[in-house]
């Protein structure tokens, strides 16, 4: 099969150390030639333009820019200190802060990639500066990024609702409790880890006295401008999620001005960091979009699904397989394109096996994003690697991801075992 030979070429290019986007393009060239011959190459430029002009993707650079501005304005340092003062003296509180901030910032965007890049630039850099454990920080950031699409607002939820004919507002509500459960699991994991090895904790410098709760809350006020600019405008029906990203950038400029950090050179540095990073990330997305198209063209995607679902299996096994497919494919395929392929195939199966759509689609969404933090191909890993401080290597990020993949799989199992986690909140609306 030409498509398998092409994957062998992709693996070889990755091993050689060819940049990820170029390796994907290498796969695409090879696969196109094997599948159809040179005329297949003619679809590349159109697909590249199609991806790079997608208006939804505008949120990716805008959220990275938002993160850059927040970091350079000192906002993240203040956020760290304030949450620190508020939560007080529990073990590993600096990591708990990372969990809280990751979930908070993750809620702002629906894209795991944008959030991983933003958190790498902000929370991760700040945490390392404070003497934190690189791997634990990277893992927490990946975990937080993974929750971004299931905590509303999220355009992936809207897309699932559209594709599957499920109530969009119910789907949005369904993601909230599983998101909180995952956050609690992250917290417990940090507690257990630090109880076993206290040396990994970050100690607050002794010369910095603890501030009062009131002052901490006051110091968070400017930050709430950003939260309002992104979440508030969406919830009040003033802006679409896309537009709110631009408003968030404007809000971050205002916050920087309040902290007296707004300067032309600061803005230029933020723009430079953003554009280098988003160019690299979007090049990978453009390349992987073509890869997805070629897989669809070769019939491999449909064959895989047909093969796995055609077997006569008990419902639990079918569900496990239905979840395994997006998890595996999303490691290296475009999420949106994959949703277009899989959801129409899944819809009749849900009815056949009597699965609850809210549970299945929530699990499906978690699986999709889980794929993006799973080595070796997950986009969010690349985004975090590019955005985090330079002494954090992709290899370390790979290693950091595994415990959190485990925790999210545990969340998946919990949601499956206790369906009300997904269905209770929507039923109260």
């Amino acid at each position: 099969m030409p498509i398998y030979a092409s994957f062998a070429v992709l693996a070889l290019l990755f091993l050689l150390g060819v940049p990820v986007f170029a390796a994907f393009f290498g796969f695409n060239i090879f696969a196109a030639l094997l599948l159809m011959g040179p005329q297949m190459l003619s679809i590349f430029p159109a697909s590249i333009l199609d991806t790079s002009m997608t208006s939804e993707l505008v949120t990716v650079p805008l959220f990275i820019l938002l993160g850059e501005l927040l970091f350079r304005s000192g906002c993240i340092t203040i956020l760290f200190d304030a949450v620190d003062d508020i939560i007080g003296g529990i073990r590993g509180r600096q990591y708990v802060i990372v969990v809280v901030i990751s979930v908070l910032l993750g809620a702002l965007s629906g894209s795991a990639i944008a959030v991983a890049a933003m958190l790498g630039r902000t929370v991760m850099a700040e945490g390392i500066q404070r003497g934190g454990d690189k791997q634990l920080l990277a893992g927490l950031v990946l975990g937080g990024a993974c929750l971004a699409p299931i905590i509303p607002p999220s355009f992936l939820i809207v897309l699932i609702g559209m594709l599957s004919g499920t109530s969009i507002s119910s789907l949005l509500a369904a993601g909230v409790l599983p998101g909180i459960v995952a956050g609690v699991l992250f917290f417990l994991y940090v507690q257990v880890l630090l109880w076993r090895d206290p040396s990994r904790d970050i100690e607050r410098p002794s010369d910095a006295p603890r501030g009062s709760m009131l002052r901490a809350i006051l110091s968070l006020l400017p930050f709430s401008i950003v939260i309002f600019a992104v979440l508030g405008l969406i919830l009040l029906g003033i802006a679409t999620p896309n537009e709110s990203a631009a408003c968030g950038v404007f809000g971050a400029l205002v916050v920087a001005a309040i902290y007296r950090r707004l300067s032309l050179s600061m803005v230029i540095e933020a723009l430079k960091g953003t554009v280098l990073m988003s160019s690299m990330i979007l090049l990978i997305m453009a390349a992987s979009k073509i890869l997805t198209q070629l897989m669809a063209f070769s019939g491999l995607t449909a064959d895989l699904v047909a093969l796995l679902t055609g077997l006569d299996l008990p419902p639990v096994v079918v569900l496990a397989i239905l979840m395994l497919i997006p998890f595996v494919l999303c490691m290296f395929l475009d999420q949106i394109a994959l949703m277009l392929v899989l959801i129409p195939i899944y819809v009749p199966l849900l009815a056949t096996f009597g699965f609850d759509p809210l549970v299945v689609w929530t699990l499906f969404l978690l699986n999709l994003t889980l794929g993006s933090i799973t080595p070796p191909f997950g986009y969010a890993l690349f985004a975090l690697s590019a955005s985090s401080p330079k002494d954090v290597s992709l290899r370390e990020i790979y290693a950091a991801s595994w415990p959190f993949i485990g925790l999210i799989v545990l969340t998946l199992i919990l949601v499956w075992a206790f369906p009300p986690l997904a269905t209770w909140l929507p039923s109260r609306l």
Partner: protein
Amino acid sequence: MVAGRQGGPPPLLREEKHMFRTIGRVHDRLSETGLWLGMGALAAIAAISFAATMSRYLLGAPIAWVPDWSGYLLAFSIFVTAPAVTRHGQHVAMDILASVFTAPWLLRLLSLGALLATFAILVTMSWIVWRSLLSALGAGTMTAAGYPVPRWWLLAVVFYGFASSALHVLRMLAFCPQKAGLPQPLVETERV
């Protein structure tokens, strides 16, 4: 050039060396200019999206061309910046083999292999985009949008992104052999 390098570099005449250095400087400056243009495009996206939101909500006057032009500016910024991304070694690569093997000659060989493969891929991509550029130019194809622009404008930027990146990789192959042993093969300069 690569074969020459492995068998010992052929002595270059003084003028040739000078000429290569001048071309290299011009190329670097071009890539840095591209980076600034990409930054400008991104700032423009943020500004027009914000302005359009305010105009629609506060004045009831949506600016219809903003979504299309955000897309054009995004495509422009990705590819006009790409050569600078390559030059600054900002692409993400796997460093699995490079971390397993530590023998310097092996690392150098891996690096050469990676640079050669990357160069070949980028040249092929440039050629594919170039052909499409010519056909779009010949047919006068516009973008399928409400506010269309000629497709060849965008394809020209895509072509520039691939071709200039390819040239950066070629220069790394030819002129930075001592750097070709770093864990991340495309690190030419420090990360910015």
